[in-house]
């Protein structure tokens, strides 16, 4: 048990350090390929972390794209009024989805296990239809094109390099929020994950922590939506398709659900692997499928768990 806690202890730091490498990358290389892959990783890491927060409480959420949409469209709509300030928009992209999550959470968190999975799946489908049915606000099926680039302290983050560094900053912010939340309430979440009914009977006010987790996960997803819209300069319903939630879940599970390094490494490895398929990206789904099967059947800890197990075996042999 102790080893697991210590792994969690510096896992956040390692995750942040890994992400920070991305911040330096544009100063070292000008390779567009590196830019493109890193950009995708920074966006998807945030989304995967949102999934991971819920998994800490043994809840599998398909609703990530729905909250991403709220964050992303908030920024796109504000952009139409030339509101592009980075601090203001980051706050809005986090707070708005989180606010929406409060009443939703009150409804859906009464459900557990399979029922929660189904209800979040339905939620993301509803969001798609809502985007289509509100053309006045969201541009409907056309989406909102030509979103202006974000401005940070008066500088317009228009170039590829600045977009990448901004995405990196958002990923670090999201990792900080996720890390602080899950470390602060580590024992509460662990108790809920182990046995919710037992935790409740021992006096833990379960709903309070589940609600908190759900709301923060929604806010984090909103940041992912912000980052995505900022890269594409377009908010479009197809960007928030409910099917994309499968990718984020795959990243998290394959990366490993034991620590925050899981979503970070999982996203990094899989986005990179997807790029190896080059322009035949549709085949990457098959790879995800095989990897999910392998992880669930043979390597329950995912990438991080496997590395930790190998590490323990090696260090055990030495001592």
């Amino acid at each position, binding site marked *: 048990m102790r080893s697991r806690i210590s792994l969690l202890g510096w896992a956040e730091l390692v995750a942040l350090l890994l992400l920070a490498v991305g911040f330096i990358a544009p100063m070292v290389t000008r390779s567009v390929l590196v830019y493109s892959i890193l950009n995708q990783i920074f966006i998807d890491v945030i989304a995967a972390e949102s999934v991971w927060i819920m998994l800490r409480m*043994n809840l*599998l959420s398909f609703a990530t794209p729905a909250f991403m949409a709220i964050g992303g469209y908030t920024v796109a709509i504000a952009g139409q009024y030339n509101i592009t300030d980075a601090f203001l928009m980051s706050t809005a992209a986090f707070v708005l989805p989180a606010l929406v999550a409060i009443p939703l959470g009150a*409804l*859906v968190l*009464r*459900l*557990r*296990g*399979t*029922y929660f*999975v*189904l*209800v979040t*799946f*339905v*939620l993301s*489908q*509803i969001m798609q*239809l*809502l985007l*289509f*049915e509100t053309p006045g606000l969201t541009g409907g099926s056309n989406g909102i094109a030509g979103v202006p680039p974000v401005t940070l302290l008066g500088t317009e983050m228009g170039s590829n390099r600045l977009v990448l560094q901004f995405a990196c900053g958002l990923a670090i912010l999201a990792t900080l929020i996720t890390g602080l939340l899950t470390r602060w309430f580590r024992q509460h979440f662990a108790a809920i994950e182990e046995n919710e009914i037992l935790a409740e009977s021992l006096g833990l006010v379960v709903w309070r922590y589940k609600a908190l987790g759900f709301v923060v996960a929604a806010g984090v997803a909103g940041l992912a939506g912000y980052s995505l819209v900022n890269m594409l300069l377009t908010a479009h319903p197809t960007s928030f398709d409910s*099917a994309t939630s*499968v990718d984020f*879940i795959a990243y998290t*599970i394959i990366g490993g659900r034991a620590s925050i390094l899981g979503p970070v490494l999982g996203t990094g490895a899989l986005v990179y692997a997807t790029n190896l398929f080059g322009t035949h990206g*549709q*085949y990457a*789904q*098959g790879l*995800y*499928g*095989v*990897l*999910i*099967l392998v*992880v*669930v*059947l043979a390597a329950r800890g995912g990438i991080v768990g496997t590395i930790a197990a190998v590490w323990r075996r090696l260090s055990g042999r030495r001592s």
Partner: protein
Amino acid sequence: MEQFLQAAIIGVSLGAQYALLALGFTLIFGILGVVNFSHGGFYMLGGYVAYSCVAGLGLPYPLAVLVAVLATGALGWVFELFLLERLVDDHLATLMLTLGLYLVISTGLLTIFGPLSMEFAFPVTGALHVGPIYVPRENLVVLVVCLAAIAALWLVLYRTDLGRGLRALADDRAVAMAQGLRPKLLFPLAFAIATGLAGLTGALVTPILSLSPGVGDPVLATSFLTVILGGLGSLEGAALAAFVVGIVEAFSSVYFGGSIGALVLFVLVLLLLVFRPTGLLGRTVRGA
């Protein structure tokens, strides 16, 4: 009036299709406690197997449908026995396994058959016209097969020892096992029956609509909706809900058009899920 009758006919034929899918889906949940994310994959697979038999081997269509049912059933049996069975009590793990299988199936079909839709026609064509109302003959075939499948399933579950065993396992696995029932034998069989039903639907419906990789995606969403509405694990509920979903979809599309109908349906299901998670006919919420 014409439009009303026509919408009702469309609703029933959609309902028949959805019922076949939802029955398999709910069977797996009821007996194994597994949410089968690969259900749409077996639907597609059924379509492609039937297509390959007709176009590649020159088999007559009914025989091709039979092959499709057996093939999807066999794959389901193997998958349950060798992979799912090991983790059958872990809800999250089984969900991930079926999701993984779905991704593998759909990518496999895309690799083998390519992205374009297949030329795959139903052998029975034309429609019965009664005044301004029409009933496509192919839909009648689907309806008949669907009713037959529901009847067969009911007979198996309620009139055979096998069915009694399956239902006992669904009710209380511990007690059933204490009485000597062997889930290792019965679970793969239940899974095979369910995936066979999905394969049957695929073999029947894809020649009527279209067959291309990706036609499995909406299947999962519809199965979800139907089964939630009917109550997870309830066979009668699933059959009833399938016709409700079909009829609501038909009427809302005929009278409002576009995507409003789908939105209404989804919101309805969301509310139902939240306020009555047991669905229309479900009894208890499984301790999932």
